[in-house]
């Protein structure tokens, strides 16, 4: 029933700040990025000129850009299992043994989320120092020759990925833990009463409960993984050595702020958004189809499904 309270005008004073903030700093720049991508403007010589698809053509003709795109996808792809399987295992391990130890583990595992990425990167750089860093010293005790972790083209990218993965693992463990706390213990008790073993309970009830959040976290990994890698690359390797740690995020930054080629930078940004839109679209579709209810095997488990917190 429509009452005068539901008139449209009442909400707008509250919404003005957020709408203005989004319009000026998020969506305005988004449109401006698209507009700049079809223009040529290096900030100093006169107004921007419309050049059509020239920026895109120049971009796609550069092998370094395509290589960095591939490397970004590879980075995200490598981070995906680390961002889902490992945190899930950690969260389940923590969930199965509530107690003092778990609390301490949780607090410790939460730290990478709040530690400054720049400071973390600096610490890693110190530890990985090829001449005197602790890691190479310890490896030397085992007879392994010192490795120039950040300076060797073969190891630089995996190291960046590992450093980035740290924060991702910490955040995802936290989120999986939150999801696990939503499992109704009565369902698990019922399964145990019916004689399910530990592994069966875990597999059928817990993992299927976590399916939705896994899809969500995969999306988080895709969206945030590359952004977090940018900080590590910018601080530690600056795209090197030999461009191995270059990725699209860092490329946009160098196009825009080292070469001041705003058109190409914007074109790269549009390509990035387009490339990201695909997995995110898939994720949105996946989540919508499953919102009717998680798939749980029929039979004696589905009898107790109604007790589960509904998705």
């Amino acid at each position: 029933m429509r009452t005068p309270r539901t008139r449209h005008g009442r909400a707008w004073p509250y919404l003005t700040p957020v709408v203005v903030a989004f319009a000026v700093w998020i969506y305005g720049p988004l449109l401006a990025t698209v507009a700049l991508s079809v223009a040529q403007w290096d900030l100093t010589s006169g107004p921007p000129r419309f050049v059509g698809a020239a920026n895109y053509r120049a971009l796609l003709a550069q092998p370094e850009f395509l290589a960095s795109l591939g490397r970004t996808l590879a980075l995200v792809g490598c981070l995906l299992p680390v961002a889902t399987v490992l945190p899930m295992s950690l969260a389940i391990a923590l969930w199965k043994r509530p107690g003092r130890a778990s609390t301490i583990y949780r607090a410790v595992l939460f730290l990478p989320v709040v530690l400054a990425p720049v400071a973390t990167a600096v610490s890693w750089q110190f530890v990985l120092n090829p001449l005197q860093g602790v890691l190479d010293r310890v490896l030397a005790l085992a007879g392994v020759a010192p490795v120039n972790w950040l300076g060797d083209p073969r190891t630089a990218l995996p190291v960046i990925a590992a450093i980035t993965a740290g924060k991702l693992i910490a955040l995802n463990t936290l989120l999986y833990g939150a999801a696990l706390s939503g499992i109704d213990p009565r369902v698990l008790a019922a399964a145990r009463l019916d004689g399910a073993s530990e592994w069966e309970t875990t597999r059928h009830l817990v993992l299927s409960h976590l399916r939705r959040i896994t899809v969500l976290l995969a999306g988080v990994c895709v969206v945030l993984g590359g952004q977090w890698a940018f900080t590590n690359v910018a601080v530690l390797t600056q795209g090197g050595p030999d461009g191995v740690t270059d990725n699209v995020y860092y490329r946009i930054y160098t196009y825009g702020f080292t070469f001041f080629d705003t058109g190409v930078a914007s074109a790269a940004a549009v390509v990035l958004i387009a490339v990201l839109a695909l997995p995110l679209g898939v994720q949105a579709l996946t989540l919508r189809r499953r919102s009717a209810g998680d798939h749980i095997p029929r039979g004696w488990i589905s009898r107790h499904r109604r007790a589960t917190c509904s998705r």
Partner: protein
Amino acid sequence: MRSRFNSRGAGGHTLLLATCVGLLFPVVWAVLTSFKPATELYSTQPVPWPPSLANYQVALGRFPIGHLLLVTLLTSAGVTLGQLVIAVLAAYALVRFRFRFQPLILVLTTGALLIPAQALIVPQFLLTARLGWLNTYAGLIVPQLGGAALAVLLLRQHIHTLPHSLLGAAALDGAAPREVLGHVVLPLLRPAIGAVAILVFVNTWNEYLWPTLVAPQPQYGTIQTGLASLTNTEGSDPGPLLAAATLATLPFSPSTPSPRVGSPTPSCTPDGAETHLGHHARTSVPDHPGGTRGGGRRHPRPGPAARLWRHPGAR
């Protein structure tokens, strides 16, 4: 929920321990090293004894660390305050009112979270430069207010969990929406606001991309940009560098004990929390017959009915 198999328990502990070590060893090592005298920086002895503050003295003398920390503190506080104001108002409006563009605003808010920050830096920087805000607090704070999307969604989530009969009682007593917000919702929202405030503060403190663009020089920048530029100039003298890195992470030890800070509402996922309460109660909030914008007289405060419900324990 105790595991019946001890071997599984050991495996879990191994995994947890190994992960903790892998994630935190470099940071812990760096912090410990920052307390070592310059001659022992690379020694494999873990804990420095006696600990020495030489690195910190050199760092504070050589770099404007105090100033960097101050800039970072003010920026983080400013962004936190700004985002909270924006988010509380927006979240309340999204829950309280029903209007045509509500789904659109929600989609835009979620979309704002998904757009990678690096894709927008060129126009954002150009606008900031055009406004003359480079190397100023305004340039550091205001553009980061656009990141309020997460705060909006988290607070909206929490407002949804407030019982709508409570808000209805306040309206029955004649409270205007802004009074309901101020007298009823805000006090109940305090824990959520606290959590979101810590989250935003931490994220802004750790932010590297935007301050690097707006205020790259040490005299104007935040501790993160200062630290990053120090790695290039001080690579051969890591002692003060590690001291600076430790100081850059210093404020967060008090905020770590509660792992649930910053996580979304723990029990059900956001969709699950949109219970039937939300929809049924929103349409049943009646308008006070006396009108809500009466002349010059101030509107009466929420009466005894609402005040009875205001105690958070009564939820």
